[in-house]
């Protein structure tokens, strides 16, 4: 890190290669498709390369790089917003709801049902159906493993908002993966 900050190109290359795949995963999950993820990641890598000299280590490099990359992804999403979402809801299929006739299934069977659906479906397609704000917090939490405070700093929102968005985002994602048709037709009762 210090060498990269001092201008060592090889050190920076090593650093970027080391973190490339996880940043790619973040972009892929946030943007929902390969092409936009490539564009966003390229922007992010350039921003990191240009900003490495100003990184002072207060936050973990991982968190800092997630922040830069998330910004790049959100910018990419903003640029593409008038383009159609690549995966239409119908591509999610019609998986069975993980709920039995007598109420919620037991935890293992519910989990198995959701996992089975998730195996068949494209998680990215389900993520693409989430509002962008929910998608970002869920991905930063569940993929990047950032804690709530870190997510709050990355997205510049209050920690309480992070918590509520994670809960709602996960819930919607579970519903989408479990029964997308019901989710699409169900009016939101939440503010």
């Amino acid at each position, binding site marked *: 890190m210090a060498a990269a900050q001092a201008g060592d190109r090889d050190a920076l290359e090593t650093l970027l290669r080391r973190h490339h795949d996880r940043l*790619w995963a973040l972009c892929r999950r946030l943007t929902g498709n390969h092409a936009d993820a490539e*564009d966003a990641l*390229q922007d992010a890598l350039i921003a990191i390369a240009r900003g490495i000299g100003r990184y002072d280590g207060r936050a973990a490099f991982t968190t800092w790089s997630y922040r830069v990359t998330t910004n790049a992804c959100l910018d990419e999403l903003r*640029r593409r917003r008038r383009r159609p979402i690549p995966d239409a809801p119908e591509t999610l299929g019609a998986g069975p709801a993980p709920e039995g006739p007598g109420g919620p299934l037991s935890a293992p069977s519910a989990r198995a049902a*959701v*996992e089975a659906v*998730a195996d068949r479906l494209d998680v990215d397609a389900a993520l693409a159906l989430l509002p962008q704000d929910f998608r970002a917090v869920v991905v930063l939490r569940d993929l990047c493993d950032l804690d709530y405070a870190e997510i709050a700093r990355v997205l510049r929102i209050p920690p309480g908002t992070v918590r509520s968005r994670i809960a709602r985002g996960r819930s919607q994602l579970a519903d989408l993966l*479990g029964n997308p048709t019901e989710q699409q037709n169900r009016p939101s009762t939440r503010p």
Partner: protein
Amino acid sequence: MTAPRDPDDLASALLDGLLTDDEAAVAQRDPVVVARLAELAAVREAVRRPPAGPDPVARERGLASALAAFEAGDEAAEQRGAVTTAGTTVSPLGRPRPAARPATARAGTPWRPRGSAGRRWLTAAAIVLAVVGLGVLASNWDTGSDNADTASRDAAAGGSDDAGGSRSATAEESEGGSTQERAAPTVAPDGIVDLGDVESSEALAERARSALDEDFPSPLGQASGGQDAADEGAGGIPLRSRCADVGGAGGLPAAGETIVLEARATLDGDTVDVWVLAADGKERVVAVDATCAVVVDRPLD
């Protein structure tokens, strides 16, 4: 923190270990919460599964572009030195920032253009223009342009300082910079200038002035349009869309006024939307609260 009561909130908090032992014990006795917890855990595992990797060629191209930008950084910094402040390129207010991606300014770099190949040369030209022709550019700027769109693909392709560069740099400085820097206005991920926490309308006005002086990008033309909210979906840009009808109800902007800054801030603990409006050489800062009631309306010195 008050324990959530909604099963989804409880299950999510339980999944992340946010509940106390007592709260967790209660939650785990609720079969609805337990079932939901299993579902949310499965969702988390699904999200965590590594996606398919990037195309190897694209991977190498991206890395090479970043390294080229790194190598060009000193040179570009020198070029930008005369017009940069705290890492933010100074350009006419609200104008899409000059393309300044170093990699694109170097012939033969592997940067993948999104537009025409000649755009890299336009980028380099834009850098020069930004340095020597700032005043000319400012005088020629048409404030009526819809720069949110025009700054999209072209700006990104030519040199997305606007996208991954300056905004990210702003975030970097906010997180890693000095106390003074972190107190300065920043650009939030949703693209709106964040003036930070202030305790008074005077402080808010100072922050707004600082943002103007720093030439933070202002999404002109979108302040009352609400287009972003429509495009982004229900979770889009809530603050921008929330008071979209203020312009009609409250006269923002008034006839003849131009919006020169759109921002948000936390004023004495409450989130407010902020606009700086200009007319006849005078500026005023206006803030509205969560109910879209005007809480600040004062001249900007």
